[in-house]
């Protein structure tokens, strides 16, 4: 029996299968369809200090082998998260990662400072793909300096592992991973969605109200793999791979190019039991290929 457990920054995951932020809410609805205790971990919907209403509809549209979303980081805010959502989450036997999104560096720090006291939260994922209100809406995620500073300052207020979730909409993602490492980050999550859009050819209006949205799903898998490979070849930091994983085969592929663990997003909407099926698929793959420990797969590409 292969050992599927993995270890990142001192944190143990029972297997490398995590559910991605924004694609499982706070865990309760998807629990109707799947056994969350069988998964390596859950990353909660991006939290901001105060509740956010999010963008007006339409928020989503399908594209070839993908979807665009512009949810607008709708979330209940830190306070209600602790009061209303943690009680369900703390009962789960899986690793809980809390994703934080903010519009100022101070807000990232403040959220982390408050949430670090919650025992049931094992680590933080910092979503830097948010517009920076100070710099007039430019994304933190495209700004090397900002990513470095966020890592450093957030790290200063918590002893728990910090993963920085990187934007793929940059020329060299490994430069960002390098800065995360230099500033004490414990790992990177890659990738967030690609910027995309779609228009109705009769009304000439955007199919999502926000005009642009984030592209996810199988369409982006080749890009995610290339970004992860680029990080792996250039920076020695644990990578949580994300992007277009639909089944265990995609999961193996993302580990081969460098991921220590991975997250599944869009597939949850189509098959809410996908995570558990991937765990089973990985077990069989490991057995058939004489892999003792799944971490042997990480970065095992043959180039």
């Amino acid at each position: 029996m292969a050992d599927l457990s993995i270890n990142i920054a001192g944190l143990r995951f029972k297997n490398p299968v995590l559910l991605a932020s924004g694609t499982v809410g706070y865990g309760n609805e998807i629990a109707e369809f799947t056994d969350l205790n069988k998964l390596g971990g859950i990353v909660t919907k991006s939290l901001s200090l105060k509740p956010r209403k999010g963008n007006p509809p339409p928020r989503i549209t399908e594209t070839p082998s993908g979807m665009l979303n512009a949810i607008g980081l709708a979330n209940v805010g830190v306070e209600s998260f602790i009061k209303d959502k943690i009680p369900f989450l703390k009962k789960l036997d899986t690793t809980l990662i809390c994703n934080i999104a903010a519009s100022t560096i101070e807000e990232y720090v403040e959220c982390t400072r408050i949430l670090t006291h919650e025992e049931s939260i094992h680590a933080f994922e910092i979503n830097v793909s948010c517009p920076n209100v100070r710099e007039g809406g430019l994304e933190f995620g495209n700004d090397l300096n900002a990513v470095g500073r966020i890592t450093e300052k957030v790290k200063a207020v918590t002893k728990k592992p910090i993963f920085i979730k990187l934007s793929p909409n940059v020329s060299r993602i490994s430069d960002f991973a390098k800065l995360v490492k230099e500033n004490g980050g414990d790992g990177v999550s890659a990738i967030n969605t690609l910027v995309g859009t779609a228009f109705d050819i009769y009304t000439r209006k955007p199919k999502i109200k926000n005009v642009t949205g984030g592209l996810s799903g199988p369409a982006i898998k080749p890009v995610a793999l290339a970004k992860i490979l680029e990080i792996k070849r250039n920076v020695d930091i644990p990578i949580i791979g994300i992007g277009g994983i639909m089944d265990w085969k995609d999961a193996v592929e993302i580990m081969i190019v460098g991921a220590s663990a991975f997250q599944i997003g869009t597939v949850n909407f189509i098959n809410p039991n996908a995570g558990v099926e991937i765990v089973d698929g990985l077990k069989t793959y490991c057995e058939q290929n004489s892999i003792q420990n799944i971490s042997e797969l990480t970065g095992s590409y043959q180039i």
Partner: protein
Amino acid sequence: MYVEKSKVESIQKISENIFLIKVLAPSIASLVKPGQFCNIKVSENSFPLLRRPFSICDVEGDYLFFLFDIHGEGTKLISKKKPGEFLELLGPLGKGFNYNDGYDTAVIVAGGLGVAPFPLLSKNLSANKKVISLLGGRSKKNIVTYGLKNVLAATDDGSEGFHGTVVELLKREIKNISKDNFRIFACGPTPMLKALQKYCVENNYDCQISVECAMACGFGICQGCPIDPVNGDSYLLVCKDGPVFDAKSIKL
């Protein structure tokens, strides 16, 4: 709620572009309430990627019925299913109609394929309730009466029944109905629902509407389907808090 691989029992072309499909789905069938829907994976591969939401039209024992028209690639693929082939259903989803108490006459107001949820509602209404079904469509061939009782039609081109919209038909019929203690159940395109909502709010009529919008998951995890409530700061979700809402409670 279940994910159920459902065998197609039969598929029937009701009119030019409209189909009724019957599938075996015992687990879901045992739970359904009128007004609920299923989110359906129409292919075994990733084209199309997302599920497609469809109202549960009717239930017969272990079988579910869906009424649909060909809209894009997803519905085209369903229309080509043959008996013995499969659809993958996720459901039953959403809150259904609140139809048990508090009124004597059910007034169904449906535009186009908005009739879909009403055969089951009609069937499940207790025998002592009166039902009137007002159906609107562009033309005669868009009027689907499957499973409905006491039907009056309205067509834009006058080719069947009342010449005009179904909301105008309701306004005409209301003098007969309004003597009763009635509740309106409505489903259809958003412009129709808007007109109906305005009319019902102005007249303080009891009205439940079933709303459509783009969906990804169908059960509350993607936040893709927000709708603005009349009261409150945060959006409701059409898939989880709806698709049926009190006409007074939401902004269309």
